[in-house]
């Protein structure tokens, strides 16, 4: 596609439920990042994919969070047994090759609200 897309754009869930967030990267982009942005805060790195592998998943806050990427394309971020502190905007960004000089292109984000 022309840009990075994310779905759903908004998700409201009850505490304890599982949620799955999706990121569709720009076609051909090999590097994919997930970030979390709490209200009024900066971006918190969660995980980085190069192709289908995740060389850096150090930002995942707990074992309730997991992510996968298939076919070097779509990525899903899964949060199990959601908690209220998981409420945030989850942003996906992609780069063509993941090199230091590559521009990051961000999706519009998924706003997650845990009641």
């Amino acid at each position, binding site marked *: 596609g022309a840009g990075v897309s994310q779905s759903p754009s908004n998700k409201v869930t009850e505490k304890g439920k599982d949620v799955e967030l999706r990121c569709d990267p720009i076609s051909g982009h090999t590097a994919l*990042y997930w*970030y979390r942005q709490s209200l009024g*805060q*900066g*971006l*918190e*790195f969660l995980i*980085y994919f190069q192709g289908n592998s995740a060389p*850096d998943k*150090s*930002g995942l806050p707990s074992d309730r969070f997991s992510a996968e990427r298939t076919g070097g394309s779509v990525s899903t971020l899964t949060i199990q047994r959601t908690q209220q502190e998981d409420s945030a*905007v989850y*942003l996906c*960004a992609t780069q063509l090759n993941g090199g*230091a*000089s*590559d*521009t*990051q*292109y*961000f999706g*519009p*984000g998924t706003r997650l609200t845990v009641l």
Partner: protein
Amino acid sequence: GIQVEQSPPDLILQEGANSTLRCNFSDSVNNLQWFHQNPWGQLINLFYIPSGTKQNGRLSATTVATERYSLLYISSSQTTDSGVYFCAVSPSKIIFGSGTRLSIRP
């Protein structure tokens, strides 16, 4: 890990004013980028600038890697410049600063 500090945290200006935003980082980096997040949440890359100076229209940026800081200059600001400006650095994974919230009043 590396620390990224941005200043000021908030800035309110009249349309037409100039501004300077600062990003300090605590360790050597091989990548530094400036982003603008508009009031609707969309993040747009402004500059990739690990060192030196770049200009794009009314915006310019300078990074002095040896002194571990970068500056973003906005001249003749417009209301559409409002939003949050982030710098992000990467020795390896990308680390974002907490941002400068800029509000331009007509």
